[in-house]
């Protein structure tokens, strides 16, 4: 009996659950076997610290019940709102800002005049408009008229 190592007995049940005969066997073997002596010592100490750890239970605070009931009410309120409204509540800021940005861009594109580069002012006149649509306010120089007419002829060829 004494030759049997005792680690299996130690690992099989808690120290508190070992019977008197098992404890006697363990102690007797531990006296003669060095490795089993340290195993027994470690098992005994482990049992003590585990007991101590199990006794450190935290008590509920006096406000805990109130906190839980408040959380439940909040949860119930959230659940009572239909899913589409819940979705809207979470996305309304994003959707509103996107709509605002779209409106602002649209307004800007209508309000601002189209930019016309200066170097294209000459070619903006066609030959027809030069001949047919000249008015007294919109007079061109002689060179401008000639260059416009010949430029159109060159393009046509």
């Amino acid at each position: 009996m004494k030759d049997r190592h005792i680690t299996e007995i130690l690992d099989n049940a808690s120290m508190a659950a070992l019977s008197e005969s098992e404890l006697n066997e363990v102690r007797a073997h531990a006296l003669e076997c060095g490795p089993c002596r340290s195993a027994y010592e470690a098992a005994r100490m482990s049992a003590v610290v585990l007991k101590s750890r199990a006794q450190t239970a935290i008590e509920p605070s006096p406000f805990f019940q109130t906190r839980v009931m408040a959380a439940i009410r909040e949860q119930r309120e959230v659940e009572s709102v239909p899913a589409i409204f819940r979705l809207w509540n979470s996305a309304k800021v994003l959707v509103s800002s996107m709509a605002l940005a779209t409106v602002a861009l649209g307004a800007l594109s209508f309000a601002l005049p189209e930019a016309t580069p200066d170097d294209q002012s000459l070619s903006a006149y066609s030959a027809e408009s030069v001949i047919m649509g000249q008015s007294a306010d919109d007079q061109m120089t002689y060179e401008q008229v000639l260059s416009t007419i010949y430029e159109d002829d060159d393009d046509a060829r």
Partner: protein
Amino acid sequence: MDLDLARQAQDGDESAFAEIVRRYSPRVFSVASRFFRQRSLVEEAAQEVFLKAYTQLGSFEGRGSLEGWLTRIATNTCLNMVRSSKRRPESTVSDLTDDEQSWLDQHSVGDGGRSSVESSLVATDLADRLLSVLSPEDQQALLMIDGEDASIKEVAEATGWSESKVKVRAFRARKKVREAMEKLLGRKSKQLNSAAD
């Protein structure tokens, strides 16, 4: 009695559920304290347990006790919280603090040491060091059986595991913890020897 309370709460009677919280919060806190030592975490876990219980009241059929049903929800909720958070670093093999060393000295001579608040805090720190080598499930099994003297059957009921699974977990956990403690004790003797030299 429990079933009536659960039914009333399910029907929207707020005071019935408040009574459930008042009656069983010590039990839920006790379960959460096995997993966490910080009050804020224990309270967070306990609140989560009661919120789940509130939404699942319909599944309580009154076959077992309401306390048992809540214990199971608490155990699974805490296990999930521990799994989803970062695992603690394994600190078992690190050097012992002076307090821990003197605690081990006192208890290894077999006099049991002084049982003060400080002493139990050191013991609790040592236990956490040892438990950190285990999975949360194994910790749970070992703390219940070796720490709280729960039976295999009680652990099986609280966790939903089979009794054989509980036995295997407890055996494996006890062995690992014993080996970790042997390492600590070996380290302690080495430190004492080197101090003597």
